[in-house]
């Protein structure tokens, strides 16, 4: 009997060693790349809703977005902002106000402001998806987020690279390889923003975050809820969608 228990224990130890080897075999970079393959969009059309909460005030905005590589076009559809458009072309961001018929390039310090009063800054929208080029990621542990096992990764900005956040901490679902939580820190170590994914759906064979909440941690009681109502991957986007002429 004692022999059997010893054998069983031995087996368990070996199994646990093997599993830990197979887990640690996955590097931080691989995890990020796998997450990006789920979350990175080549071409898509999405309808979404953004609710800006500040204290007791809630403002909801709806929009339709077209994405193609580094280019993106967002058209607001809620009555108050109907016709307001954002166009992202590579590293430039333009905004069109229908009432003033005015086209504004958002640049410099304006990029740090919240987009349409939300907790997402224009800069957040502009961030390139290739995070592995900007940050050195490390796997720092594993945690459970709402019952799901996650890898916890920490990315520190590579010296000399122009990035908004010095450090970012990401929680990536171990099975579905989708980010469930992210914290963005200033160089001083202060937490600036925290993003949490509330709902993930499998669409066309890939797991995609459908509902998320972004909190500006420097402003008490401020958060922005972002809900994707529908998303279509690889749709046909008419030529000329991402041009300034189309914005007017």
């Amino acid at each position, binding site marked *: 009997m004692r022999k059997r228990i010893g054998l069983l224990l031995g087996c368990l130890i070996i199994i646990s060693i093997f599993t830990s080897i197979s887990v640690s075999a996955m590097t931080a970079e691989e995890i990020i790349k796998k997450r990006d393959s789920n979350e990175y969009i080549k071409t898509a059309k999405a309808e979404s809703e953004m609710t800006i909460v500040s204290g007791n005030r809630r403002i909801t905005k709806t929009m339709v977005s077209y994405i193609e590589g580094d280019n993106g076009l967002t058209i607001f559809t809620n009555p108050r902002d109907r016709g307001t458009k954002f166009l992202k072309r590579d590293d430039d961001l333009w905004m069109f106000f229908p009432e003033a018929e005015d086209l504004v390039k958002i640049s*410099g*310090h304006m990029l*740090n402001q919240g987009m349409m009063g939300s907790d997402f800054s224009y800069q957040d929208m502009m961030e390139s998806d290739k995070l592995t080029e900007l940050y050195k990621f490390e796997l720092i542990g594993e945690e459970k987020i709402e019952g799901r096992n996650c890898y916890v990764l920490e990315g520190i*900005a590579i010296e*000399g*690279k*122009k*990035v*908004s*956040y*010095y450090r970012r901490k990401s929680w990536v679902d171990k099975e579905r390889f989708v980010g469930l939580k992210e914290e963005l820190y*200033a*160089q*001083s170590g*202060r937490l*600036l923003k925290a993003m949490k994914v509330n709902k993930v759906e499998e669409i066309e064979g890939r797991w995609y975050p459908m509902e998320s909440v972004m909190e500006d941690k*420097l*402003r*008490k*009681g401020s958060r922005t809820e972002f809900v994707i109502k529908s998303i279509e991957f690889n749709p046909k986007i008419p030529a000329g969608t991402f041009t300034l002429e189309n914005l007017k």
Partner: protein
Amino acid sequence: MFLTKLAFKNLVRHRNRTLITASIIAFAIFFYILFDSLIGGMTEMSYESIINHEAGHLQVVNPKYWEEEDELPLENLISVEPELMMAIEGVERYQAASPELSFVARLNNGINELPVIGRGIIPGDFEAVFALEKQFVEGRMFSHGENKVVLGKRLADLMQLEVGDYIILLVKDKNETFNTIEAEISGLVHTGNPNVNQNIVYLPLDIVQQALNVDGQVSKVIVRLRNKDLAMRLAKELANRINAFNDQLTVYSWNELEAVSFAGAKQMGNQLILAIILLIAAIAIINTVILAALERMTEIGMMKAMGLRENEIIYTFVLESTGIGILGGIIGVILGVGGVGLFSKVGIDFAALYGFDLGSFGVPILDRIYGVWNPKAFIEVFAFGVLVSLLSSIPPAYWAADKDPIKAIYHR
């Protein structure tokens, strides 16, 4: 001589008419002098306000930074080497110098955020250049090495902040990466410069340099001289000295600043207003002189019938009119002296009088505005008054003298 005496007698004889016409001229001259003094005072105070709170007399800076200064970039900064400071201190009429690192930040009170301009300073040096010391309404200036800030009372009120509260400044460093500066408010200031009151946060230079990752560099070195009027010449002189060992830097004097040229452009607008005042005054004078001449048509006919030649009549008329001009001018100047004297002593508080803030019109002044003495304006406007009276009397005098004496007598 007879004619000159006659003209003088006429002035005395028609005392009321003389006084009324002269008073119109006097009023125009007085009004001009007063307005000129007010504008002069405003311009002078705008300059003083910019010099005393923002610009100093000279700025040692990289010309590439100067071009993009509005953006407050963290590029093209300068290193404060001992050699540079020695050159600055060696300039004629040197009083003090203060290195400064300016940057864009978002001031956060935990609930709201507001864009502000941050200025990293060395407290001792800063107070030797700028007159902030006496402007504290609460608290005091931070000492070197303290993790504290000073800001305008108005900005603090807007963000519901008080001395002893902690603020967070969200900044972007040289690599565009977010960083935060957390510090306690050590003092609140209220100055005559609205920009300082509502837009600027002062912090210790070393803390700012560290947060912005700029390796001990600064945006510029601001220099105060003992005489601001020599700034242009001394700027060139200092630039030559500095260029001997560093050709990346240049020196600008306070009158090359954008804010000063903006104030200068406003000065042009004010000159236009003054010109309009003069024009109105001229019309009033011409009108009065013509009416006076027409009123005396009978008299002119009589003078002609008694044998006076046309030229003699015109001479008498022009002399009379000039006399009125001189009298009005003297009264106007005397009133002007009194007015400007009072104005330069007591001043005028627009905010209290009319409840508006000149700051919202882009004039960097919040205090009382004091008039300035401008002797040139006194002389010019006096000469103008006399000349207009003289010239405006010629055409009606000609017209009247040209008339047939009988028709002139019975012109009604």
